[in-house]
């Protein structure tokens, strides 16, 4: 089987393997190969690509042909064997000569013509892609890469059988010529004159008349060879003369059975190779491969970032301590009476502001003032924004300045109106922040439901 077929199957195998890979990988791999080939001045071809991949994957090609070609190879051997046997049998049957009457050249020529016709039909069928025998193979897989080559492959098998048929027939003829006294004659029901018959055989002998003139029957031989089965008494004046037809028969077989088969077999082989190349060029993986060869590999993604799951956190909300000191971090909830009402006990709570656009001096002042009140402090923050290092610093500074044991209740809000944070992810984020501070007097709290939303002057605490 030709290399083109093996290449096609190899390519198809690689295509199927590649379908499990992502496009980015394939593009990178093939573009790299194309660049290497160009740098080394080597041709950029599918065989070279396959070879490089095999080398990279340490794949050693089997010494034998592809298993998918085995069936075709076996069929070829069977047809060759059958052809050899049938060819010899055919010729022996045709040349049976018991002395009763001559071997009829007309029949022989008709059978040669039939052989020739069959050979041509086989090739025409393959060229047209017609497969009347398709059902014999049963259901064919839709994705068989050899599907489009079946007619050509079948024709090649048929021609192999035909060639062996012709060769064994020729050998049988030669054997019979040597071991028997064959006497050829011609007979037909049609009113054909010896001149007409001579014209026919001369026409058939055209291809070899200069090459081997003895193999061209003379007018005398033709006239002497006509026989009628009823005319059993018709004595043959020169029996040896009838045997001189054998060079003509030999050349007839050679020229109209063996040579056409040989030529058509070669053509079928070329057709298989050509169609295998065409199938490769039309393979769904071929154009994308060329695209990957030719197109620069564009990478924007960087390497993959491994998903980083945040540490597990069990949200533990503490009861809100009674306090009338509020610090609004970055002004969170400062303008909402609902927030103040939900977080503080008693009227007129002290509202301070820190963080955000406050200056560091204003932060320090808020800390000092809150510490002087000697009661738990409620620190209100926007829960939907992540806690920053500045907030952490603020808590540490408070701990240094305030009396030991001062409770600090951190209250992240869900909105500026004071709703409690319910999003589990955001709650966990604040829980982790509290745990990172390692401060036993820092509590994570939620605003309590408040029925009386007393409006408060936003600038009251400034």
């Amino acid at each position, binding site marked *: 089987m030709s290399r083109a077929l093996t290449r096609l199957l190899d390519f198809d195998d690689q295509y199927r393997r590649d*379908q499990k890979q*992502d*496009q*980015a990988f394939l593009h990178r791999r093939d*573009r790299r190969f194309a*660049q290497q080939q160009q740098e080394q001045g080597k041709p950029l071809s599918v065989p070279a690509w396959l070879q490089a991949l095999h080398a990279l994957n340490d794949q050693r090609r089997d010494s034998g042909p592809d298993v998918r070609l085995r069936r075709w190879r076996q069929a070829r051997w069977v047809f060759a064997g059958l052809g050899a046997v049938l060819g010899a049998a055919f010729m022996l049957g045709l040349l049976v000569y018991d002395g009763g009457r001559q071997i009829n050249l007309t029949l022989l020529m008709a059978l040669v013509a039939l052989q020739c016709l069959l050979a041509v039909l086989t090739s025409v069928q393959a060229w047209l892609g017609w497969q009347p025998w398709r*059902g*014999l193979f*049963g*259901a064919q897989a*839709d994705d068989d890469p050899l599907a*489009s080559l079946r007619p050509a492959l079948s024709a090649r098998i048929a021609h192999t059988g035909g060639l062996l048929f012709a060769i064994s027939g020729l050998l049988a003829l030669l054997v019979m010529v040597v071991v028997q006294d064959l006497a050829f004659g011609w007979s037909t029901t049609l009113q054909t004159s010896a001149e007409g018959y001579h014209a026919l055989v001369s026409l058939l002998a055209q291809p070899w008349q200069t090459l081997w003139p003895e193999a061209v029957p003379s007018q005398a031989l033709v006239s002497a060879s006509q026989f009628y089965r009823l005319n059993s008494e018709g004595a043959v004046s020169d029996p040896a003369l009838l045997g001189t037809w054998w060079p003509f028969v030999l050349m007839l077989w050679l020229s109209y059975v063996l040579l056409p088969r040989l030529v058509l077999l070669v053509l079928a082989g070329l057709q298989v190779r050509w169609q295998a190349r*065409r*199938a490769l060029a*039309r393979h*769904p993986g071929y*154009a*994308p491969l060329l*695209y990957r060869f030719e*197109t*620069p*590999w*564009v*990478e*924007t*993604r*960087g*390497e*993959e*970032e*491994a*998903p*980083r799951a*945040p540490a597990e956190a069990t949200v533990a909300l503490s009861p809100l301590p009674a306090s009338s000191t509020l610090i609004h971090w*970055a002004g969170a909830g400062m303008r909402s009476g609902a927030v103040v009402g939900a977080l503080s006990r008693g009227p007129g709570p002290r509202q301070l502001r820190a*963080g*955000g*656009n406050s*200056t*560091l001096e204003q932060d320090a002042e808020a800390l000092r003032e809150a510490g002087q009140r000697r009661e738990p402090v409620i620190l209100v923050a926007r829960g939907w*924004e*992540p*806690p*920053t*290092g*500045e907030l952490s*610093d603020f808590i540490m500074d408070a701990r240094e300045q305030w009396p030991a044991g001062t409770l600090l209740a951190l209250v992240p809000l869900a909105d500026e109106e004071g709703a409690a944070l319910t999003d589990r*992810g955001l709650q966990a*984020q604040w829980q982790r922040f509290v745990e990172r501070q390692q401060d036993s007097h820092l509590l994570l709290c939620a605003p309590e439901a408040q029925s009386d939303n007393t409006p408060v002057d936003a600038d009251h605490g400034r």
Partner: protein
Amino acid sequence: MQTMDANDTGKAADSLPRFAVVGHPNKGKSSVVATLAQNDSIAIAMEPGTTRDSHRYPMKVDDVTLYELIDTPGFQRPRKLLAWLQGHSLSASDRPDTVAAFVNQHSDDPRYHDECELLRPIVAGAGIIYVVDGSVPYNREHEAEMNILRWTGRPSLALINQIGSDDYSADWEAALGQYFQIVRRFDAVRAPFEKHLDLLRSFGELAPKWRETLDAALEYLQALKFGRDHQALEQIADALIDMLGHQETARLGEHQDARPLLPQLRQRWQAWQREREQRQRRAVEDIYLHRRLQREESDLTLPDESDLFSERTRQLWGISKGQLAAAGFGAGAVGGAGLDAVTFGHSLGTGALVGGLLGAAGSYFYSDKLNKVKVGPLSGGFREAVYGPLKDPQFAYVVLGRALVHWYQVSQRNHAGRDVLVVTDSDGHWLDVLSRGDRNALQKSLQALARRRFDPSKRQRLIEQLELAQQAFAQWQLEQF
């Protein structure tokens, strides 16, 4: 993802356009980078505000880096940092050096880890892309951050990212204009591809020496997009070839009745179709680098009844027998009827009546031939029962319509998007956008597929026809929304 190298040198880095994406925590820096770097692992990987190290996302063409985006942690202590800078600077001329001094002095200080991470690439020569959330009101608390960035003296661009539904972009624009050379609005989740390119083009405006490289990069990105669209088409074409021509077979004894096999074969056929469709979906998502996409899509379902034009079919595929017949579409005697399958009964308008009679003949002709098990000749004591392909012309358009809806959504989706991709069936007459000749050619190809008479050499032609369908679908989508 590469952790920043502490030994970055300013001069070497200056020749390569690099952009540090900086800002307050949780304002969409990583979303911007995810979209521009086309990397959906960035947005998913992090908890808001937890980016702790800088990560580089280089744009490479054949291993040559054309530009680099750097995702940085958010500012944690901007006011203290600014106070330090003010306390160590004598005049405006030494400000960039003062920032560099801050990074040098605090590189081992865990409290300023994030500030050092975000300032280091800037000190090394990167341009600044400052990201704010335009859906919250402007607040002066960001001024410390903006002042610090101004102190670096690097080219800078402010990006107003729209996270929520409220829009305070105008206020932000006015404020940011005082601090940054260029101010742009950009919705990292919804901005179409052309906007990505516009934004990158703006990056090139920050420094003249970067412009040429950025322009080259944009050309590559544009070509990459075209290439992906074409690759997606190939995937759709291969899926159509496989799905429309698919057969399920079973072996039958010589005298065994084939009819009881129908439900089993039908079930196998349907399962195979679903699996193949899903494979096509994953392939298209992979082409556009959406590797963590969650998708919701109804299964491709074959009507239960043997008559595909039953009431249930009409509900399922949205077209009645009468509509199918009336909407002949002029695509030929037997195939024309199916073209309106994807119109779901809304298409008896332009061109629908042309060829209606022929289409009607075709649809009724088909209705008798669908969904049967064919039995092959006796071979070796067995016969082969074959189910499929489904010759109903509307099936081809249902498969194609679904594939185009999915392709369109995936190709338009940004990598910062985290919501589930909901793929609906095509519910409009996108085929109307195609010319009559193109519709007929497409119809012929689809018919050949369904009859298993598709020559592999015609694959390229089919892809070209699908390209027109793709363009028509995209145009129709733009007209709709």
